[in-house]
Structures are given as structure tokens and as C-alpha cells.
């Protein structure tokens, strides 16, 4: 959202000559295409765009984008990106990370880039597994995940990326998944948000965690299990053809959400909530909805900008410099000084 001038490009302009090295069928391909499709739509300028990544399958992303790219080290992309943005706030930064990179080894940096609110789009590819290191359980793996490092099934409880982001103070939190047609819309909304925009993208690792998201992402019965949020629209899912139209309503018994059935299209009567992207409390509930009894909340969960870190830093520097002449000679001679002249030493 930083490029002041919109540039005309096509999808081809964003492709590099590098051979893409993900496993055939990996969800990363779909995300790459979605991003390459989105950037022309928003008029982004390749010369002004920087993709910054950490380590992992997802973090190879920058090599396939005909933009500036920095493939950094494991978990540290948010810190590198913070330095890039502070040094040149005009750059349009996309951060690419995964569940291991962004929430395990780099969890600390993720928390701080979100709470500082450094303007960038953060795409966290969540495949609930370590792919590049051959399939160990990750911090988002579900309990009981069998992997080379957890042959009896993992015993640790997974982190919820969107809840983590909200807890860290993120002002934009969204969800999508690799093959979803709506992913570009989510990316466009993230780009339009000034500040750190966190997007969890469920990504199918067909080698080590195949189809783990099929329970909600499979096309068959998707309406039943996906709640696509639209600002200003009622939170509805399902259809007359399947189990009927349903919606989310506030639980009369106390803070929380309920699934209610909508009769004859009258969602108001059923008390279905209208999605307000600036409602932080509801955003927390949507992020934490237990899948199964509830559908998977997708789309923009929360979007309520506040001033960015780089703007605050620039403003602080402007104020600190106001009316001051940056003379190095004067700076060096500052403080209590004395002069020695000629050969005869003179103690003031």
C-alpha cells in the first residue's frame, strides 16, 4: 500500500527465470500464483516491492518473485524487515514465513513486529509441519501428530496463529488457504491496511502432512465448514441445499458465540452478528472458534489501523532534529573542554 504510483503489470512480470523447487502438488504453488495475480491488481511496482523470508519451504518464495528479495535466516525475517522498513519506509514489504519459522524459532520477532506495527504484509504459511527438514511436528501440529520426531504422536498443544497475532497487538488479522479463490481478496485487504497485516494461509504439505486441512478446505461441503467474513455482512454459512443456513450469534448465557439457524432468510430475527472488522473482542472469538462445532472463520477477522512504527520513528527523529544543526565539528567539541596553545601548556 506504499507505492504512491500505481504501475501497470501482468502476472508474467512477477515471475522469475528460476525453476520453482517445491514438491509437485505443494500448496505453495497456488499461493505463489495468487500473489502474482494480486500484485498487478493493486498496481504494485516490482522495483519497490521487497519479499523477505526466513527459512523453510515457504521461505524460498522470494526467489520466484521478480522483485527485490531477501532470503534471511531461520525466524529472523521480521527483524530484518523492520530494519529495511525503518531505513526506507517507501518500500512495500511482504514477509513470507511458516509455522515453524514464524511461531517457533521466530516467535519472539513475530510478536514484536506485530506489537510495533511495522507496515508490511506478513504471510504465514501454516502447514502444521516442518517440511524442509523432512516432516517433524511443528508448533501448530495438532496433538497426536505422528512424525519422525514424535513417532507416538505429538503431546504438545498447538499454537493458534491468529490468536497469537491478536494477542501480540496485531491490527490486521486474516485467514485464507492456498487453493481458495478468495485468497487474492484477502491479500488485497492486507495490502490496503497500513501497518503490520498478519495473514495465516493454510497450506497443504502434500508430502508430510497431506490434506490435513481437508476437514474445512475440501471443496465438497465447503459452505458448511467455511465462514467467509465480510465487513458489514452477517456471519452466515451453510445453505438451504445442505443443512440449512446458519449464522453466528452472541451467546445469551455469557460472552461467547453460538451457531443459530436462520429461518426463511431472516438472519436478523435469528440474532446473527454483522461482522465489524474493528471489533477486537469478536475478532478474538472468531480466531478461537473451535472447529467442528463451529465453521472455520476465514477472510478478514480484524482490521483497525493505528499509526505505524516507522512513522513514529521518523516523527521522533524529525522532532529531535528540529532547530539543530548537525555539525560534527561542534559535536566533537561539545562538553567541558580546555585549550592547550603553543608549547607552553596552559591549564585554562
Amino acid at each position: 500500500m506504499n507505492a504512491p504510483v500505481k504501475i501497470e503489470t501482468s502476472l508474467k512480470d512477477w515471475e522469475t527465470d528460476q525453476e520453482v523447487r517445491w514438491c509437485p502438488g505443494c500448496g505453495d504453488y497456488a499461493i505463489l500464483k495468487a500473489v502474482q495475480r494480486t500484485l498487478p491488481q493493486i498496481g504494485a511496482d516490482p522495483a519497490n516491492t521487497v519479499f523477505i523470508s526466513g527459512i523453510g519451504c515457504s521461505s524460498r518464495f522470494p526467489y520466484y518473485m521478480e522483485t527485490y528479495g531477501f532470503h534471511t535466516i531461520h525466524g529472523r525475517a521480521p527483524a530484518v524487515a523492520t530494519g529495511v522498513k525503518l531505513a526506507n519506509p517507501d518500500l512495500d514489504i511482504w514477509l513470507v514465513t511458516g509455522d515453524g519459522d514464524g511461531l517457533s524459532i521466530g516467535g519472539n520477532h513475530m510478536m514484536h513486529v506485530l506489537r510495533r506495527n511495522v507496515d508490511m504484509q506478513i504471510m504465514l504459511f501454516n502447514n502444521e509441519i516442518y517440511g524442509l527438514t523432512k516432516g517433524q511436528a511443528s508448533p501448530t501440529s495438532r496433538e497426536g501428530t505422528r512424525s519422525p520426531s514424535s513417532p507416538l504422536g505429538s503431546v504438545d498443544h498447538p499454537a493458534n496463529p491468529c490468536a497469537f497475532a491478536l494477542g501480540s497487538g496485531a491490527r490486521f488479522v486474516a485467514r485464507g488457504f492456498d487453493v481458495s479463490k478468495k485468497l487474492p481478496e484477502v491479500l488485497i485487504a492486507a495490502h490496503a491496511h497500513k501497518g503490520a497485516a498478519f495473514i495465516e494461509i493454510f497450506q497443504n504439505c502434500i508430502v508430510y502432512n497431506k490434506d490435513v486441512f481437508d476437514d474445512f478446505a475440501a471443496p465438497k461441503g465447503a459452505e458448511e465448514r467455511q465462514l467467509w467474513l465480510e465487513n458489514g455482512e452477517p456471519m452466515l454459512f451453510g445453505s438451504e441445499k445442505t443443512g440449512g443456513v446458519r449464522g453466528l450469534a452472541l451467546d445469551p448465557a455469557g460472552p461467547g458465540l453460538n451457531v443459530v439457524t436462520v429461518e426463511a432468510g431472516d438472519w436478523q430475527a435469528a440474532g446473527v452478528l454483522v461482522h465489524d472488522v474493528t471489533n477486537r473482542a469478536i475478532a478474538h472469538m472468531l480466531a478461537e472458534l473451535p472447529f467442528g462445532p463451529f465453521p472455520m472463520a476465514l477472510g478478514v477477522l480484524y482490521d483497525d489501523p493505528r499509526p505505524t512504527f516507522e512513522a513514529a520513528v521518523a516523527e521522533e527523529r524529525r522532532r529531535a532534529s528540529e532547530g539543530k544543526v548537525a555539525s560534527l565539528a561542534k559535536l566533537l567539541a561539545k562538553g567541558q573542554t580546555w585549550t592547550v596553545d603553543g608549547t607552553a601548556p596552559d591549564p585554562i
Partner: protein
Amino acid sequence: MASQAAEAAPEKFGQDMSQGSAPDAVTVRFAGDSGDGMQLTGGQFTLSTALAGNDLATFPDFPAEIRAPQGTLFGVSAFQINFGSRRINTAGDAPDVLVAMNPAALKVNLEALKPGGLIIADTGEFTKRNLDKAKYDRNPLEDGSLAKWDLLAFDISELTVEAVKPFGLGRKDALRSKNMWTLGLALWMFDRPREPIHQWLREKFRSKPDIADANIAALDAGHAYGETAELAGPLQQLHIPPVESAPGLYKTVTGAESISLGLVAGAQLAELPMFFGGYPITPASAILHHLSRLKEFGVTTFQAEDEIAAICAAIGASYAGQLGVTSSSGPGIALKTEAMGLAIMTELPLVIVNSQRGGPSTGLPTKTEQSDLYQAVYGRNGDAPMPVIAARSPSDAFECAIEACRIAVQYMTPVMLLTDGYIANAAEPWKVPDPADFAPFPAKFLEQKNAGDNLLPYARDENGKRPWIKPGTPGLMHRIGGIEKAQGTGHIDYSPANHQAMTDARAAKISGVAVPDQDVALGSTSGKLAVVGWGSTYGPIHQAVGRARRRGMDVSHIHVRHIWPLPANLGELLRAYDNVLVPEMNTGQFKTVLRDQYLVDARPLTKTSGQPFSIAELEEAIGTYFDGIAGNEGGEVPVNDTQLPSPEAMNP
């Protein structure tokens, strides 16, 4: 007031003055409880000493705890200053004067005091309770155990309370001015004007004029007390004449200040904005504090969430076209190691300042050591060469910081600048440099494709340096990263021949960094013994070699600034001496580098007590190489047993 004559001590403090000749250097140590304001007292005494035109060196020695329990042995905070009418290179071995504000301060510092030296003690603090805390069975001021020294013991606490009475402060607040009372006495002892300290107090307590007045009254009372005491006998006023100095403007700097100023100067000479990423750590935080007040110089300071983020953000800023700088101390440097590899691989400029402290692990946060040399030169995964520069003193650190910036920008590489806790905290007079005396080294950015229609981000110039390309430059989009790069294009390339070629290219670039030839700091370019030092051991080595030479020994001092790559002539130079002795505040790290690089029989002299070398212990080590010299028959320079205790031994 109690005064004890010491039969054993032939020379008394101030005695030569009464005989009409002032000593050319004096060492004073102020010691008290952490809460007594000894660092402040020392700092102001340093200022008055500098203003009097003496050369000086200081050594602040304080506990790691912010407010250690009062009166305890480990809560003692001390500030030593050595000043004189000649060149001063060290903070002095053994103090001539010890100011002890409580029994613990006396106990911890007494060993160091010269026989015949003067103890000034506050009897008001020598209570049963404080004596117990200091583990004294009897009051040392009264039991004759201090007979070796001159003792001036009186109730400074009470005299201070008396002096500030007109200001209506409570006793607790009144006692806070004790350090100013003591400073007043010290100012009188060395014939110093009070006016600059008055000014400083008024400035410091601008919003609380009554506190300023109380402190000034205490200072004046201490000063007046000196005159009375002189009338009474034992205390002598000393005037140390100013040192001969090159003409110019002077001020005192600590290493932390001069490094900060040098970094600002370096960024200006490179014509770049500076980005400083830091994380709080002792003793490196002072650099972050200084730079965060210099925003008008195009400095962005970023207090990161951890050491790793601090260096990574600096790397990001360098990538985006600024001069990235980060700073820490040993444990923090360890955390930054992986990111240094990234800067080496992506060939981006970066300056890393390491204010070394005692290690390993948390080690001795407030004490000095030089034990991160291996870490600096060798301490990364993979073959990861990186230039290393070591500052030898607070004022030298200014030039070293500029040099680090120059190499970083001219060779597109991270550079480590080594300093240590001693340099960071110690102050010395500094001839204010003229920025125009430094040759600029403006950074250049690639604006157009560099290979016809192609861009080669890893093409190399005659220095082996790749181009610096700022994101945002039209038409030059490319990808970099920590994964092995193909020569020229920078694409991912794991092929055997490419990794070999890139490893060689990175090594050649660093070994080709233009480094000035090594000079000899004192002595000749060949001879019986070279004492080779680096970093903050400069002062004591220089003094010890100077003294040995005056005794006729054929010994020279070589002090190395460029630790990596080493100066091209260093090997040849070292081979011109029969013996090479390498004193270091570690277990022999630079010695290993010299042996490895030159196959010379460099011998270690090591010390890891958290204290700087004393001149005497170096002199003694030098002496062992000069058996049979006239005046030194029997092999060794006599050991001065009044020196600082030194737990180190010569490692054969």
C-alpha cells in the same frame, strides 16, 4: 582526627612536596559503598584534573549489582585515577591515596595501597554494624594495623551534616552530600579550583536549587577542612604541574563516547545515514544511550527485542542502503553470530562493536577481559572471514570506529570492533579531532545493470567487493540470501565448484583488505624482545617497556590494531626479535593467532582476574628475558611487592 606515623614507611605521601619537588604522577582511589556516589565523585575529580592540564587515566571498578546491600564487601564501588605532569598510560598500579568511605571499602582496597600512602577514612561509618559487615573483628582505625600507611581518619559524615545544616535537610539527605565533601577535600589536596564543580552542581540540580546549594556547601566545607588539616600537620597540598601537550582543544572522553562519536563520523565520511540496532547489555549499553541522543545526525537507534533482532535489523537497514551498526558484549555477540554469517554471505556492510567483559556465559558483567578474540576472528559456522579491529584506549576508539566503517563500506563486509569494559568506562583527555582531517569514503550504489543487459549482483570489483544495490532502484530487482550464491548472478547454487570458488572469493576479499603496516610503538624494529599487545593493555605495556628500556633492556612494544587481517609486514617484523611476549587479559588467544599465522614462538603472559595488568607485573615478566644485564644481575627485575595483587602467573 587520628594520625599514625609509620616507622616502616620511609616515604610519606606529600613528602617530596615539602622538600620542594612535586611527584610527576599521583594515583588516587575513591572507594565507598555503591550508594555513596563514588563514580560521580571520581568523574568530577577527573574533570577538574583534566581542566588543570594534567594527563590522566581512570579506572572505574564497580559491582554488577545496581544497589548491593549497604556496607558489604561486594557492594564496594571504587574509582581510581592516575594523573600527572607526564604522559599517563594507565590508571596506575598502586594508589598513593585511598579515600575509604566505610570499613568495607577500606578492607577491599587496602591491599592495593602503596606503603606510606595516605588513607582518608570516614570514622562516622566505622560503626560496630559496618565493621561486622566488613568482617572486621576490631576497628582497624584504632588497632594499629594500618601503621604501614599514613592515616587521616575523621568524621566526614558528621562534618557533612554540620555543613549542610542551614539547608534544613533530613539526616539521610544531608549524608548524601558526603561525596561532595570528600571531593572538596580532594580538590584542596591537589590545588584545584572549585568553580567548575559549583557550575556542574548548579546545572545538575537546576530544578532543585536548595540541593545544589547544600552540595556546594559540603564541597566548600571539605575544601576548607583541608586548609585546617594542613595547619594541623600531616596533610600536604600538592600541585601537579600540567603535562606538555600538543596545542589544541581538549576534552575528556570515555570509550563509549568516543566510539559513538567515531561511528557518527564514520557514517558521515561514508555519506550514509546510520542505523544502530542495540539491546541492553553491560557494558555496551552506553553506546546505545549516546547514539539515541544524536538523531539529528541521521542516526536511527532501534532498541530491539533481543540481540539477534538488533543485528538483523541492522543488516536489513544496510540492505536498504544505510550503514548498519550493532553493539553488544560477549554473550550478546554470541547470539548475533548466525546473523554475522548472513552479512558475510550476502556481503553487506555492517559494524559490530563488542565491548568485551569477563566470560564465559554471564561471567563478570562489569569487569574487563579480552577473551572474545577467538570469537571475533574464528567464532562462526562455516568459513566466515571477517575483519577485526581492536581499540587500545578511549581516544583511540574514535579512529578505530571510523576505520571499521571504512572497511565495512569499502569491502561490503561486516567488521568487528573490539573494545572492552575498561575502555568503555575509562576516561582520558582527548585532543578534539578535526573531521576535515579524515579522508571521506563515500558509499556508491549501483544504479544500472552492470553486465550489458544483465545484472550481476555478485560481480566483483578489483577489491573483490560486490555492488551495493538498494531495493527501490528501478530495473535492478534481484534476490539475495544466506544460501550459497552462484558467482556473478547470486542465484542459489550448491554445486561443488561454485562453493569452492565462492569460499575462496570471500576469503580473498577479506585477506586483501588494505591495512596499514605495523609500526613499533616504542623501541626498535628488531632486538631481544618484542612485547606484542592489542586492545586496552596498551597503557601498562607501554609504561613497562618504557621503564625496562630506561634500565637498558633491549625490549620494544608493538601494539596491533588490525587483528584480522593482520598487517602484511607483521610476520617479518616479529621474526626480527629473539623473543616475542604476548600479554593478554585472556588465556593466550592472540598468541595462538600469531603462532598460527607466522610460526613464531610467541609466548603468552595471561591474566583473567577481571583487572587490568599492572605495570609492575609486566616489568617483571620482561625482566626474565634479561639475565645478566648490568644492575640486574641474578636475572630478574626486583618485584615490587606493594603492587596490586595479581592472581595470574606466567604461563610457560
